[in-house]
């Protein structure tokens, strides 16, 4: 399977949310089944599938989604998600290794953190600013975003509040914010994995398996989630779910989120343009073997090195002396 022919994140639909249906494989894609009929879904065009209450999904359907590079996320009533990911658009680990190198070096990690804050602010950060000052400024910026959305929609705002396990009791603006966040996280998670990065190696966020997802989602929170959630909440609490989803989709389209998210990730991590030829080879033939690491340079995989040690090495290997 030539991975170059898989659709790119930038050309895909952001998400599809379904509930109360059975999801099964259909030809090389999937279809939704309920008492009203059968609805095929072109999942190669889809980045994220959210499965809401009342859904069942078959093994073959999950495989078809993974083959098409679509992330599947399960939504519970309290918005806690389980997820399944395929191998991603590219089998090469070059992107992930770059992310790991940037993450593990404190100086490089700080560069990425600063770049991410600059992307949120939309302007450069003075080199003398401390991380504490940057976080303070970000706190003010987010508070202003909530206040502005509240003023623009007339929806009252008393602060971000959610009690885990008591989600249904939260006021409906906070419910809308939690829901919109979870759709943004799902789409960001799918894009991160699709582009070959790790969702766990976060720079600003740390300690969770989705730390990098939170980093990337925060680039778009004030321009996507907050306006979308307040717009949906403006119409009241009835039927909030579908209206939040529609508002999110409209915000994703307006912001051209799918077009910019992978380039934004690469920019935040300080990556240059083209990948090297080896990655291109790996992607053209998904089952090409991985290389073997060696201090001098990578050795080709798929080879038995039993007699690779020269005469002395051969004697040691065969006789153990």
């Amino acid at each position, binding site marked *: 399977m030539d991975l170059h022919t898989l659709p790119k994140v930038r050309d895909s*639909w952001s998400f599809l*949310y379904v509930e109360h249906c059975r999801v099964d494989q259909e030809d090389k894609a999937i279809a939704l089944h309920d008492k*009203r*009929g059968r609805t095929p879904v072109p999942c190669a065009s889809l980045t994220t599938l959210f499965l809401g209450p009342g859904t069942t999904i078959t093994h073959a359907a999950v495989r078809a989604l993974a083959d098409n590079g679509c992330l599947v996320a399960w939504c519970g009533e309290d918005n806690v998600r389980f997820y399944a990911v395929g191998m991603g658009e590219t089998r090469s680990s070059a992107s992930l290794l770059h992310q790991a190198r940037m993450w593990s070096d404190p100086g490089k990690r700080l560069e990425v953190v600063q770049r991410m804050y600059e992307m949120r602010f939309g302007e450069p950060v003075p080199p003398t600013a401390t991380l504490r000052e940057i976080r303070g400024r970000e706190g003010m910026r987010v508070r202003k975003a909530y206040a502005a959305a509240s003023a623009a929609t007339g929806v009252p705002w008393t602060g971000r509040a959610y009690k885990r396990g008591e989600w249904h009791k939260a006021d409906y603006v906070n419910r809308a914010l939690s829901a919109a966040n979870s759709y943004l996280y799902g789409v960001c998670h799918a894009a991160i994995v699709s582009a070959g990065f790790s969702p766990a190696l976060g720079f600003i966020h740390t300690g969770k398996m989705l730390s990098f997802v939170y980093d990337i989602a925060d680039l778009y929170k004030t321009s996507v989630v907050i306006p979308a959630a307040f717009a949906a909440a403006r119409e009241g609490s009835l039927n909030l779910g*579908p209206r939040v*989803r529609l508002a999110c*989709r409209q915000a*994703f389209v307006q912001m051209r989120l799918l077009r910019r998210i992978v380039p934004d990730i690469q920019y935040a991590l300080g990556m240059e343009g083209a990948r090297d030829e080896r990655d291109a080879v790996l992607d053209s033939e998904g089952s090409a073997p991985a290389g073997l690491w060696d201090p001098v340079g990578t050795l080709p995989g798929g080879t038995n090195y039993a007699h690779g040690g020269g005469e002395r090495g051969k004697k040691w290997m065969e006789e153990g002396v």
Partner: protein
Amino acid sequence: MSVVVMVLESVPPGLRGELTRWYLEVHPGVFVGAASGMVRDRLWEKACQSAGLGSCILVHSDTSEQGFAIRTWGPTRRAVDDYDGLKLIRRA
């Protein structure tokens, strides 16, 4: 200007003739063109009025996430469902 595709099934010949003034018939009953919103909407209205017992489908490009909108008229075996702004086709 949007790209327009109209599919007509079992409609009177006069209607098909009218559409060939504006669009190319690339396949029996399948009409393609690029039209302004106004011309497109007027032709669609005319098609729905004159379709008789037949059916019409209109697909045209727009600014939504999918990049196109779908309208149907008459007895089709397929229905267009809206999933929070995403359109999918359901077969009974």
